[in-house]
Structure formats: structure tokens, C-alpha cells
């Protein structure tokens, strides 16, 4: 720590003499952040969210360093959050450096999940930046002997209004020092009408590095002395290790250790290719495994297991309304297990030595990963530090946490820093899967042209099995304990958007949470929302067709929220929606016997978040059943838009990924294991299958708080596609993925 400079001392003396509000600060040690926050070096205790110094530091060089708990998962949120800080602090975004997701150095803002980074994380950072701005104004007011009201800030320079010659920079006001100030929440924030940075399409800060190979992903972390590990997982879910011929791998070139702990097996070698070879060569004998449900009986199995039943929402008397309905409609929908399927398999680097560990991980919750990893290593939590480093995509609870535990165990065993990257097979077979769902819907439209009855029942395993403090919630921890990682009912998530936002006089929405399932499941982008919305918005379309009512009009009749009606109006206008009555037109026939159709769907994400309406145009080939999405129109309202181009990028990504999930994706498994362990076994959308256009109408509402946009636009797409296929052909496909076989089968059933 360097001594306070003369100018610092004179500034403090001046402040004291001035006799007005003194904002204390002390010199900030530039090199050791943890020490500056009063944390013992090496101790993993997150900085307090109440202290301004926990959030940002201003250097003598005028640079601003922000310490954010929310992390960049490829969605552009680190740029959007920078914009929020830049706006409130009055500095150019380019002067802001960003430290994110470090369990020792950043505030615990909660996991980066649920489209909450701008909404909740951004609000916290806005308050911190506003507090810092207020503090800087007060220091400047004291030094310039003018009231705060006579000061203005432009890009980190505070000047006296009307006398620009009297000015002080942020760096001279506090550079290197601490604010020593609690975030009061009372510092004035700017009016959105005055925003200059928020609301602008600021280019994402990390893209130049990403397109030139200079961005550091967790896959690219290299530590001195680092070696390479690979895991050897049981070949069948639930198999235990009967014997292991360690010599089969240990004798190979470069192999440092063969590690066995319970059913956890891994190898460590000097070079990556040596670790790969050793893992393949390792001769292990595994027990037989419990039998998984037959893929053909999956949905019957889901319905047969023990559940926790929960009425998500209820109005009127749906059962009697249904009994008295003249034309009740019933339908069953099915959604399969799906993968996060990041292009880069999960990877982590761990450096475990003696009594301290550092783990580099693309986890969504660096702070939350500390406890289970520490327990796995047999260390106190305050000796384990988790440092977020961006991974390959995310899309929810993928393998990031699990591979961090793998790396930690192998590093501890080898006594060296170890990098572990899963194989493609490890990834597809062992990442937590997005859960399958079964829906039984019933409803009716009354003589008044309104929905008179609506019932929903859904069966699904947990959508939320994040690591807890228990190391067995990580694959490695479960294997060490000789247990099978399975889908246990930790929390729901399947209920997201189970109940629609339509105002229905008689409805009953019941979830049946499957308590345990042999396939391990957790959060996949949107949790239950895309699946629930597939069922709800398909079924509403079926009700509209049964009653001869335009499907857009039927939705309007049950909505009064002006923002809901606005996105519906906007997308109908943009797409040129032509109101239609009952039966589908059985397809405008294009070339090659191609049928054209268009479908509509609307969802307010999680019932209180972003409003999204979509119109999808499809071509269907009746002879082959092939479906091609031609054009997608989306109207999107997530309140105040922070970065319109970043938002468009997210919406486009949601749409393309949702098309992929709807048309292509299902986890294949046989009676003992996942079989779809490469890109042929788990196909995703390719360039030749993308739409010709994704046409987006952003409805910016600066007077409304920002809500998340990382997931919302996925939700209406699956039903909009199914509804478009129905419009094109009269055939209703109720099981995802909407494969050519299923489309042909539905065509036969509809006798078209």
C-alpha cells in the first residue's frame, strides 16, 4: 500500500475545513482488491452489497472498474449493464472495465438466471452508480465551494455550471480512494427521458475479441504447470464401478494419475491428447444398471410416477362448465427431453493446492458453487474461490457446475492445476436435461364466442435442480458417494406460464410435479414456459378453430392489459394478419405441392415479464411431412430497452433456437442410457433450415422498468409453428419435435 499523496492530504484537510458534508475516502490499494475491502487475502467472502466500494472503483487514470455479480453468458448483458452504469455515472462506456462473477471480489447478485440480469442486477448497479455520482458531486462541491446544484458532469469531468474553467475529474476527486459510503438508495437517478447511453445500440464490448480469437473463454484458461484431465463416466445411468484396471491407462505416455473415488473415475495427463487417449484406454468394469423407461412409453411413465399435485390457478368452476359445454375440446400434448447442447462441451480449470482452491468456471452462480465444491474437497468454504470465466453458450443449468467439480477433484488428486473438458459424449449424456412434459387440456367456447371452460394438467420432472451445499448435487459428488445423479424434486419451474394471462371465467390449472425420475433434469432456457405455451397456445388455437373464430380475435377477447393488446396489434399489422374464421384454408398450394400457412401465438413471459407476440409462416410438404419456417414476425415489449441491437440479437437467437427445439430436438435414449451422444444423434437447426427473415418490432417503453429478454421470445414460437402447420394443412401436430413423420401421421389422421 502506498502512502497518501500530498494532494490527497490537502484534499482531506480542505474537506474538513469546509465544514460541509465530508465524504470520507482512503487510499485504494490498486493491486489487491480483496485486501482493500477488508477481506483476508485468500478468504472467500463476498463483498457486502450495501457498501458502494464493493461495486466500483475509480482509478487515478480516470478508469472505472465495476465489480458485477451478474455474468456474461453470451447474451450481451455485460454491455447492457455497462450502459446502465455509464448513464448513471456520466462516463463513456468505453472507460469502464468489468470484473464479473468472482466469489471473492464481486457482490453476490444471485445466479445469472431467469432473464434477471438487467431487471434486478441492472437495478442494483444503477443504484450503486447513482450513489457514486452523488458522492463525487458532493466531494466536488466541497472542493469548488459551490452547491451540488451548480455542478454538471460530462464524461467523468465535474464542472461548475456557467464556468467550465472550474472543473475536476473523477480521478482527481477520488482516484485510487474509497468512497466509504453505504448505498442509501436515496441518490437521485436520472429520468429515462434524459438518457444518452441507455437506449442506444452500443456495440458489444467483447465481440471484436471474439471474432479474432483473443477472447478468453474458460476453455482458454492456462495456468503455470497446468495439466489435462478427462473423466470416465459410467456407460449406463446408475451403473456402479465393479473393477478398474488402473494400469490400462497409467502405463500410457504422459499419464500422471488415474483417479478413482467411489464411482467417480478420471485421468490426468501432461498433454490433452494423452488424457483423451488414457480415458479411452482405461479398462473399467461396470455393473448392470437400472432400466430407464422405454422411450415409447415415456409419457405414460411420467404420468404413472409419484407426483406433488398443485393447483397453480383457479377461477369459477371449470369442471361443471366443461360438463355443460355443448362442444368440449380435449387434446394431449407432449414435449420431449432436450439438451442445452452448447457447441463447446463443458470445461473448467481448477487449481487445488494444500488448503486453498481456485476454480475457473462458466457457472451461472460463482458464489453458489463455492459451498458444494468446498464440501467435495473437504475444505472450508472460505478457502475456495470460484472465478467466472465465459463458456460456450449457456441456456440454463448445463454442465458448467459439474465439470468444475470434476476439475477440482482431479486437481486435488494430481496436486497440479488441471483443465478438464468434457467430450461431446460426456456432454450429451451427462448434462442436466431439459425435462419432458405431458399435457392434458380440455376446454370449450360458449355461444357468446368466449372461452367458457379451460382445464390444464401437466406432468413433468423438476426444472430446477441447481447445486445446493450438498456436493451430491454435482455429478462428481454423486459418483463419489456412489449415488446416481437423477432428477429429484428440488424445486419446480415446470409451472412457469402454466397458467395463461387470459382472463377466463372458469379455469383450473393443475401441475403434477414428478418427484423423481431416473434421467437427471434441470433448468433449460425458459424452464416450463416454452412447453406450457406450446400446449396453451396450441389449444387456444384449437378452440378458436372449433368455434369458427379468428385465433387472434379470440385472444383479444380475453385480454385487457393494453401492453398485451399492443404487441398483438403490432405483430398482426407487421405480418399483415388476415382475420380468418373456422376451418383452415387447407393451404394455399405453392410449387411442388407445398402448402403455406401462418400461425399466431402470444405469451407474457412468466406472466409478469416481457410481452411477446409472434406470427410464423411455414411451408409444409404433404408428401414428406417436411416443415420449413419461412418468416417470423415478433412484437416484443420488455419495458425500457437498454440496448436495442443487443435485444434484437437476443430475440433472433431465441427464435432460431426455438425453431430448432420445436422441429428437430429430442434426447434419444434406450433402456439404459442416452444414445444421442453426437450431433447426428441430437440434431439441431442448420443454416439451410433458417427462416428467410425474422422481422422484429421492438416496443420501447422508457416509462416502464426493464424486464428480461433472455428467454421470453422462445415461448410463443413452438405453438406459432404448430398453429401454422394446422393453417397450412388442417393437421394438428401435438408432439414436439414436429418431425416429418409426425406431420405425415397428423395429415393421415386429419384425412386431408
Amino acid at each position, binding site marked *: 500500500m502506498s502512502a497518501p499523496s500530498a494532494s490527497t492530504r490537502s484534499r482531506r484537510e480542505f474537506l474538513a475545513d469546509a465544514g460541509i458534508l465530508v465524504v470520507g475516502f482512503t487510499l485504494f490499494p490498486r493491486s489487491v482488491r480483496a485486501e482493500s475491502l477488508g477481506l483476508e487475502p485468500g478468504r472467500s467472502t463476498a463483498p457486502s452489497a450495501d457498501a458502494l466500494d464493493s461495486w466500483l472503483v475509480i482509478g487515478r487514470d480516470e478508469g472505472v472498474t465495476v465489480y458485477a455479480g451478474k455474468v456474461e453468458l453470451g447474451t450481451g448483458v455485460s454491455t447492457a449493464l455497462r450502459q446502465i452504469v455509464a448513464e448513471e455515472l456520466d462516463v463513456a462506456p468505453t472507460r469502464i472495465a468489468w470484473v464479473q462473477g468472482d466469489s471473492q471480489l464481486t457482490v453476490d447478485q444471485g445466479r445469472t438466471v431467469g432473464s434477471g440480469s438487467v431487471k434486478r442486477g441492472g437495478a442494483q448497479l444503477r443504484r450503486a452508480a447513482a450513489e457514486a455520482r452523488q458522492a463525487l458531486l458532493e466531494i466536488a462541491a466541497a472542493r469548488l465551494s459551490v452547491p451540488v446544484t451548480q455542478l454538471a458532469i460530462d464524461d467523468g469531468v465535474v464542472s461548475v455550471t456557467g464556468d467550465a474553467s472550474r472543473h475536476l475529474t473523477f480521478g482527481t476527486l477520488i482516484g485510487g480512494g474509497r468512497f466509504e459510503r453505504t448505498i442509501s438508495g436515496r441518490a437521485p437517478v436520472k429520468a429515462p427521458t434524459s438518457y444518452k447511453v441507455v437506449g442506444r*445500440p452500443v456495440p*458489444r464490448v*467483447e465481440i*471484436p475479441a471474439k471474432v479474432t*480469437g483473443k*477472447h478468453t473463454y474458460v476453455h482458454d484458461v492456462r495456468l503455470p504447470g497446468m495439466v489435462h484431465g478427462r473423466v470416465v463416466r459410467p456407460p449406463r445411468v446408475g451403473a456402479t464401478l465393479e473393477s478398474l484396471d488402473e494400469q490400462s491407462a497409467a502405463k500410457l505416455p504422459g499419464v500422471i494419475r488415474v483417479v478413482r473415488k467411489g464411482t467417480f473415475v478420471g485421468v490426468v495427463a501432461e498433454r490433452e*491428447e*494423452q488424457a483423451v487417449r488414457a480415458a479411452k484406454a482405461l479398462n473399467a468394469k461396470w455393473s448392470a444398471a437400472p432400466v430407464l423407461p422405454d422411450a415409447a412409453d415415456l409419457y405414460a411413465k411420467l404420468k404413472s410416477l409419484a407426483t406433488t399435485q398443485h393447483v397453480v390457478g383457479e377461477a369459477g368452476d371449470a369442471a361443471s362448465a366443461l360438463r355443460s359445454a355443448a362442444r368440449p375440446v380435449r387434446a394431449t400434448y407432449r414435449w420431449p427431453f432436450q439438451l442445452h447442447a452448447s*457447441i463447446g462441451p463443458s470445461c473448467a480449470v481448477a487449481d487445488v493446492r494444500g488448503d486453498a482452491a481456485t476454480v475457473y468456471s462458466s457457472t451461472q452462480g460463482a458464489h453458489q458453487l463455492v459451498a458444494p465444491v468446498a464440501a467435495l474437497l473437504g475444505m472450508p468454504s472460505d478457502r475456495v474461490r470460484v472465478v467466472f470465466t465465459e463458456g460456450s453458450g449457456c441456456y440454463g443449468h448445463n454442465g458448467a457446475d459439474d465439470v468444475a467439480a470434476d476439475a477440482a477433484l482431479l486437481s486435488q488428486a494430481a496436486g497440479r492445476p488441471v483443465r478438464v473438458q468434457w467430450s461431446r459424449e460426456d456432454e450429451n449424456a451427462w448434462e442436466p436435461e431439459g425435462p419432458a412434459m405431458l399435457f392434458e387440456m380440455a376446454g370449450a367456447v360458449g355461444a357468446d364466442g368466449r372461452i367458457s371452460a379451460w382445464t390444464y394438467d401437466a406432468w413433468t420432472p423438476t426444472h430446477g435442480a441447481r447445486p445446493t451445499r450438498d456436493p451430491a448435487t454435482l455429478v462428481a459428488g454423486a459418483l463419489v458417494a456412489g449415488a446416481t445423479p437423477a432428477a429429484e424434486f428440488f424445486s419446480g419451474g415446470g409451472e412457469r406460464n402454466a397458467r395463461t394471462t387470459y382472463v377466463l371465467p372458469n379455469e383450473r390449472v393443475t401441475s403434477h410435479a414428478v418427484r423423481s425420475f431416473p434421467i437427471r433434469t434441470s433448468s433449460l432456457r425458459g424452464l416450463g414456459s416454452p412447453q406450457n405455451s406450446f400446449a396453451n397456445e396450441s389449444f387456444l388455437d384449437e378452440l378458436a378453430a372449433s368455434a369458427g373464430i379468428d385465433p387472434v380475435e379470440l385472444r383479444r377477447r380475453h385480454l385487457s392489459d393494453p401492453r398485451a393488446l399492443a404487441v398483438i396489434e403490432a405483430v398482426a399489422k407487421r405480418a399483415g394478419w388476415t382475420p380468418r374464421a373456422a376451418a383452415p384454408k387447407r393451404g394455399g398450394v405453392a410449387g411442388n405441392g407445398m402448402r403455406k400457412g401462418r400461425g399466431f401465438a402470444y405469451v407474457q413471459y412468466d406472466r409478469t415479464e416481457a410481452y411477446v407476440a409472434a406470427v410464423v409462416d411455414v411451408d409444409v410438404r404433404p408428401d414428406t411431412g417436411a416443415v420449413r419456417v419461412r418468416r417470423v414476425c415478433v412484437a416484443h415489449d420488455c419495458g425500457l430497452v437498454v440496448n436495442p441491437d443487443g435485444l434484437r440479437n437476443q430475440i433472433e437467437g431465441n427464435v432460431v433456437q426455438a425453431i430448432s427445439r420445436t422441429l428437430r430436438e429430442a434426447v434419444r435414449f434406450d433402456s439404459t442410457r442416452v444414445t444421442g451422444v453426437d450431433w447426428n444423434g441430437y440434431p*439441431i437447426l442448420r443454416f439451410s433450415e433458417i427462416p428467410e427473415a425474422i422481422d422484429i418490432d421492438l416496443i420501447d417503453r422508457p416509462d416502464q422498468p426493464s424486464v428480461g429478454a433472455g428467454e421470453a421470445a422462445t415461448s410463443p414460437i413452438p405453438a406459432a409453428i404448430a398453429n401454422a402447420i394446422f393453417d397450412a394443412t388442417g393437421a394438428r401436430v401435438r408432439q414436439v419435435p414436429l418431425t416429418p413423420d409426425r406431420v405425415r401421421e397428423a395429415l393421415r389422421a386429419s384425412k386431408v
Partner: protein
Amino acid sequence: MSQPSTALRIRVNGADHDVAAEPDTPLLYVLRNELSLNGPKFGCGLGQCGACTVHVDGAPRRSCVTAVSAVAGKDVVTLEGLGTPERPHPLQQAFIDEQAAQCGYCINGMIMRAAALLARTPRPSRDDILTAMDANLCRCGTHMRIVRAIERAAAGGATGPAGREG
């Protein structure tokens, strides 16, 4: 450290390198771990996704299934060999201009494959682009922007300002 049985020399981004790896080692591991070139990425190790794509004598090759010995005497170019953040290749600049990345893990393969396409077909049709890029996978759903970036580069408009909205 085990000793390599042979010493291999490969030429990458215009410079010669002696490598310690066994001859059958996938080129990808040599580029990443011996030459610290992080552009090419491991995606599947099966030649299915394209994340590891490099140029070998100007043609796109999947470095995860290419033995390092197979490129001896040939010119290997990686993403780093095209340009830098300060001086990006026109195609890299087009990806920046179109903001054509989300997580960006696949982007190495996208740019390397597209660069090879444009070298062969300077003014590709949209169908040419879709056909050429069909072998590469992206999970974030950035396809629309990737196609636009390739079209922008092909049109020679790759030096415009970033950001498309006013």
C-alpha cells in the same frame, strides 16, 4: 513429460514451429496447447460441428480430426492469422459491424469457413452461403447475422461503422 518420437515442423500463420506432439495428435490440440492459438475451438472431436475449422493451403479443414503430421509442409492459417482486434480482416470487421456473435464459441469456424467461401466465390448468392455454412453449427441462433455479415463482406461493405440503428 514424455518425449515425442519425432520432431515435426509446421507452418502456421506464416511462421514455422517445431512441435513436440506425436504425429497422430489432432492439429487442434497442437494449435491450442503448443502455439497458444485460442481461435480454433474444440466442439465435438468428430468433425461434425466446425468449431475447430482452420485453413490448410487455403481450404477449410477440421483441425479436431486432422493429424498434425498431415499438415507438415502445408500452410495452416487460423483465425488469428486473418486479423487482430486492432486490424481485423474485412470478414472479421463485417462480423463486428453486424454484431454477429452471441457466445461466439462457434464464430471461429463460421469466419474460417466463410473466408474460404469468399476466396473461392467472391460474390456468393444467399443459397451459396447457406450451402457452404450448412456444415457448421451454432447454438445461440446467430445464423441470421452470420449470413448478413458474410453478405456484407462480399459486398465490400465491411468497413462501415458498428451498429445498425441510429
